[in-house]
């Protein structure tokens, strides 16, 4: 059955209102089961031995003493995870990241793993494994890694995207270039040109729930995996590929997920747990420590970015260039490419060019972190926009509005925009009371914009109607922030029934077709689309049953507000039939009533936001405190506004943490110095004010309800919004994030000295 994804303006009954989430009670009573909350008969405890070196050759691993320890049931090294990846280098990288193969590539890289009868025995066994390392030179800084003198991390890496093809390996895995027009001509036409360099440090998603799983592999090749993940179907495919299991025989169940933000889109200990279980022939539970989460999962890139902007006196930007260097950890990524794509996406600049360098360093393999790569590019570009405005003696917001991207603007990364919300968010910011709130001494106000693509992707949904008229909605996108509530609302809206009569569940991998990850702000967008289509299929069945009951042609039946209504001539006296009445008779009219949908959801609407930040800087300590903060973002259509606001507030707070405090600090020895929440300080309750939000709704033309993804864009503007606020409070332009007290104090001292 073909479905039309075009937006239709209509009045909603359920969508757009605020309902409590169906998983709320379990989560406030402690009943909800997360990754570490499952257990199986005879389960073992798995633990990983990790490299203490940033870069080292592994000469020998001797497990014999550990094997003899009573209670140890299996020990694995890379030899127990043979390379089955064929020519798929991406999968080979995942395999090598899960378990070092001859070389440890970063502090924390897994070297061996143990499964034992309890925690204490497993910990003891790790200490009995003897690993002989030969330390190798390392590099952890993105700029240093690009130098020709830098130690090479992979001899197989020759920079892609440069001509002629390099003859020597390097740590630069690829160069990307994109843009439009002629930037040289653009700069020649400029009255004012500003140039500045920026750095951002590596940050972690900081989900409160560490990675955890429970794996069980049987000798016949059937297996089960309970895991905290953003995408159990993808985990199934990846784990099956790495372990040589059949996809259909590996059942993966997603637990409740205690935060992901991109960090739970990749496998780390899961293939290890499966391999340990296979060898021990018993279930193995693995829970990462916080130290392991910081050292050995996937934080986001640290970066180094140069921006150059040219403009006419009237504020028209004639040219924009950015050169962006992103490290992806010890394996190649495409993070700089994403930075290039997003850097100038908020603006209509005829001549623009972005050059990206993806770089390898001896740090953990980078993973997605909420609008991955966009916040760093926005920090550089949005800071430079304020610098340009200052040079032009224009209000920063007016410079943005003067150059803002609109419907019809050619985006730097290729497409021509449809209806987008950036101009509307800027106008809303300009009119917002926050902009008129009085600032006190040492306080400053900053504004910044942000963009994220949002994605659709493969989605599969089942909707089953019970004989009592209540509805089960089975979806395959993991609920990371309340999507079960919004999807149940969508089903209720389509069917014309009460929200309370729909129960949304996340189905395991054996119960539903493939679903891509919950990533790219796609959960409610794509599963929402599939839910609409599944509900419409179910309505077709409901109408058929009504037609059969009445003995009239199907074309004489319509569906109105939860009821089948006879519409044709001569049927005027037939009383309408409710969904419940039809469902009650389903056993006699043709069997169960259901709707299904499998779709590759296309047409995710782009997300744009503008943020306002007021900051107070203590001139004695360099500490910056957020005084006021406002998020304005286009949601397309907010299904459940409570949780849209929650996404705005949460993303903004993560961005504030990145702007002010959070960073990976590596020592000279290449080891991570702050792998814990005490020293890697995320914002706490007393750091923040209330985060004000304003939801704009500019419908996405490619979704029946106009929905756009809302999860990620909110982390993009804060770094620059904070930086611009600090600049306005102090006169100091911070080019290095986080703008932590020592950095701000040093900049203030330099200003005084200068």
């Amino acid at each position, binding site marked *: 059955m073909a479905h039309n994804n075009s937006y239709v303006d209509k009045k909603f009954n359920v969508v757009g209102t*605020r309902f*409590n*989430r169906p*998983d*709320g*009670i379990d*989560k*406030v*009573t*402690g*009943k*909800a*089961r*997360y990754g*570490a*909350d499952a257990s199986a008969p005879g389960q073992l405890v798995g633990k990983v031995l990790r490299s203490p070196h940033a870069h080292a050759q592994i000469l020998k691993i001797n497990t014999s003493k550990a094997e003899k320890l009573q*209670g140890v049931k299996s020990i694995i090294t890379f030899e127990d995870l043979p390379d089955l990846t064929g020519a798929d280098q991406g999968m080979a990288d995942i395999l090598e990241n899960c378990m070092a193969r001859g070389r440890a590539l970063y502090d924390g890289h897994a070297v061996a793993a143990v499964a034992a*009868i*309890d*925690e*204490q*025995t497993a910990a003891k066994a790790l200490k009995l494994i003897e690993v002989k390392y030969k330390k190798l030179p390392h590099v952890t800084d993105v700029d240093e890694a690009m130098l020709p003198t830098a130690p090479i991390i992979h001899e197989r890496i020759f920079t892609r995207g440069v001509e002629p093809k390099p003859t020597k390996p390097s740590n630069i895995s690829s160069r990307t270039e994109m843009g439009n027009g002629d930037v040289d001509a653009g700069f020649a036409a400029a009255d004012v040109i500003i140039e500045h360099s920026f750095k951002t440090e590596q940050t972690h*998603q*900081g*989900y*409160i*729930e*560490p990675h955890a799983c429970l794996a069980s592999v049987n000798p016949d090749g059937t297996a089960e995996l309970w895991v905290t993940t953003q995408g159990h179907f993808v985990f199934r495919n990846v784990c099956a590929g790495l372990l040589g299991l059949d996809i259909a025989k590996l059942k993966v169940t997603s637990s*409740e*997920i*205690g*935060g*992901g933000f991109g960090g739970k889109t990749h496998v780390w200990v899961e293939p290890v747990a499966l391999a340990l279980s296979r060898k021990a022939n018993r279930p193995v539970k693995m*829970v990462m*420590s*916080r130290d392991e989460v910081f050292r050995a999962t996937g934080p986001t890139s640290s970066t180094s970015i140069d921006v150059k902007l040219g403009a006419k006196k009237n504020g028209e930007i004639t040219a924009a260039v950015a050169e962006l260097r992103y490290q992806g950890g010890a394996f190649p990524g495409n993070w700089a490419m994403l930075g290039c794509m997003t850097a100038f996406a908020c603006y209509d600049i005829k001549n623009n060019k972005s050059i990206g360098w993806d770089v390898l360093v001896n740090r953990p393999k980078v993973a997605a972190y909420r609008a991955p790569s966009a916040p760093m590019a926005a920090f550089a570009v949005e800071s430079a926009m304020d610098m340009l405005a200052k040079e032009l003696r224009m209000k920063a917001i007016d410079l943005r509005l003067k150059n803002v991207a609109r419907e019809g603007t050619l985006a730097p990364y290729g497409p021509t925009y449809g209806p987008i919300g950036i101009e509307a968010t800027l106008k809303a910011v300009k009119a917002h009371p926050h902009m008129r709130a009085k600032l006190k001494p040492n306080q400053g106000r900053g504004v910044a914009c942000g963009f994220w693509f949002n994605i659709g992707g493969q989605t599969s949904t089942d909707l089953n109607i019970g004989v009592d008229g209540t509805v089960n909605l089975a979806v395959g996108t993991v609920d*990371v*922030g*309340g999507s079960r509530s919004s999807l149940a609302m969508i089903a209720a809206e389509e069917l014309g029934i009460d929200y309370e009569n729909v129960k949304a569940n996340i189905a395991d991998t054996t119960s539903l077709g493939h679903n891509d990850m919950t990533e790219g702000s796609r959960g409610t967008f794509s599963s929402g689309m599939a839910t609409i289509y599944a509900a419409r299929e179910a309505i077709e069945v409901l109408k058929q049953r009504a037609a059969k009951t009445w003995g009239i042609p199907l074309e004489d039946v319509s569906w109105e507000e939860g009821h089948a209504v006879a519409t044709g001539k001569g049927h005027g006296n037939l009383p309408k039939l409710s969904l419940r009445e039809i469902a009650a008779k389903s056993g006699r009219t043709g069997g169960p009533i259901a709707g299904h949908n499998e779709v590759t959801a296309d047409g995710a609407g782009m997300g744009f936001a503008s943020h306002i930040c007021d900051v107070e800087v203590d001139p004695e300590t360099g500490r910056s405190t957020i005084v006021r903060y406002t998020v304005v973002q286009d949601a397309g259509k907010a299904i459940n506004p*409570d*949780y849209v*606001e*929650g996404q705005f*507030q*949460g993303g*903004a*707070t*993560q961005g504030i943490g990145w702007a002010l405090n959070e960073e990976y600090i590596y020592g000279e020895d290449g080891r991570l110095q702050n792998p*814990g*929440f*005490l020293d890697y300080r*995320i*914002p*706490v*309750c*007393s*750091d*923040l004010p*209330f*985060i004000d939000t304003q939801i704009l709704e500019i419908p996405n033309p490619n979704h029946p309800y106009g929905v756009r993804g809302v999860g990620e864009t909110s982390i993009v503007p804060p770094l620059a919004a904070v930086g611009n606020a600090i600049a306005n409070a102090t006169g100091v332009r911070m080019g290095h994030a986080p703008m932590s007290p020592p950095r701000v104090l040093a900049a203030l001292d330099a200003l005084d000295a200068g």
Partner: protein
Amino acid sequence: MSKSTLVSTTVNGDAVEFACPTDESLMTALRDRVGLTGVKEGCGTGDCGACSISLDGRLVCSCIVLGVEAEGRSIETVEGLSQNGVLHPLQQNFIDHAALQCGICTPGFLIAAKALLDRNPNPDESEIRYALAGNLCRCTGYDKIVRAVQATAKDMRKKGRS
């Protein structure tokens, strides 16, 4: 396996006994031996508050208390907050105010917020924020959590007067 010690304690009003090694945290003992997995592990170092419990009326991170220290004491966890199927006003307000997203930090926040309201039924925003500063939430930006606690304080004062 190291030698275990028998511990007699009270958990959510019930007499409970468990045996645990002397170096095992109370968090692990409650989760793995008593079966109260509402006590969450976020860090294991007392920095995130996900494992918050009340120990003899005092708010503690159970990951930095030893299991054997529970001997003869009284423990309250999130599992004991609702009474006879009726949610504690904090629990209801967390749901009503959308004060949770992923929910992993929620048990700890509820215990910490209850500890605050037990000693100060009328906290201002700043007092709420400092009382909850030992609990990390990465999803919400704390906005709706603070509002849920404010609403609860108001509800409970109103109820106290009636």
